[in-house]
């Protein structure tokens, strides 16, 4: 029962890895808060969007076994 978390931009720099596999969490907010505490992410959760398996999802979407989860910091393309 695990998920994969992808890190991008400042989150990847802070985590020091591009991805990691973690036990299936209770919720996406709980997952972000625990990772934020562990890696020292500067960005508060309300500044991020979250995606699961390559699609944006609501923060209250239940984490799926085996899913690829990505926290999306404010974007700066263009």
């Amino acid at each position, binding site marked *: 029962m695990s998920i994969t978390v992808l890190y*991008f931009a*400042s989150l990847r720099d802070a985590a020091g890895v591009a991805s990691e596999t973690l036990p299936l969490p209770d919720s996406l907010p709980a997952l972000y808060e625990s990772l934020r505490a562990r890696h020292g992410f500067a960005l508060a959760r309300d500044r991020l969007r979250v*995606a699961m398996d*390559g*699609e*944006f999802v609501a923060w209250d979407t239940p984490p799926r076994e085996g899913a690829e989860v990505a926290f*999306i910091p404010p*974007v700066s*393309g*263009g």
Partner: protein
Amino acid sequence: MKRFALSDAAFDVAPLRQRLLSPRAGAFASFEGWVRDHHGGRGVLGLRYEAYAALAEAEGERILAEAVQRFDIVDAACLHRTGELAIGELAVWVGASAAHRGPAFDACRWIIDEVKSRVPIWKHERYAGGDAEWLHPS
């Protein structure tokens, strides 16, 4: 045919424009973002774009499909660079063709605004002072 794409190498705008030519179109508006030598008063030496590719491509396609619905245009396309870019390099290209110029301009501007606010691409700038940072605009 895909309307949005990422490119990890420099690209030529001519074939992108060519694809939007149409006998029905009397107007074509395009936008290009180039790497500027300054940002917020600081000298910029270069930058790197990183994308969450799968999601960026899906979200980019959604934006272009929405543009075709929302504006009276013939077609539209967008290409965004990833990787290391030097000053003056092309970072993003948007084009829209339409019967008339109003919708061509409006669609082109709407697309670049949406791409900048919604597509998961991040800019890492290197400054003249030696420091560097990820841009996460609030």
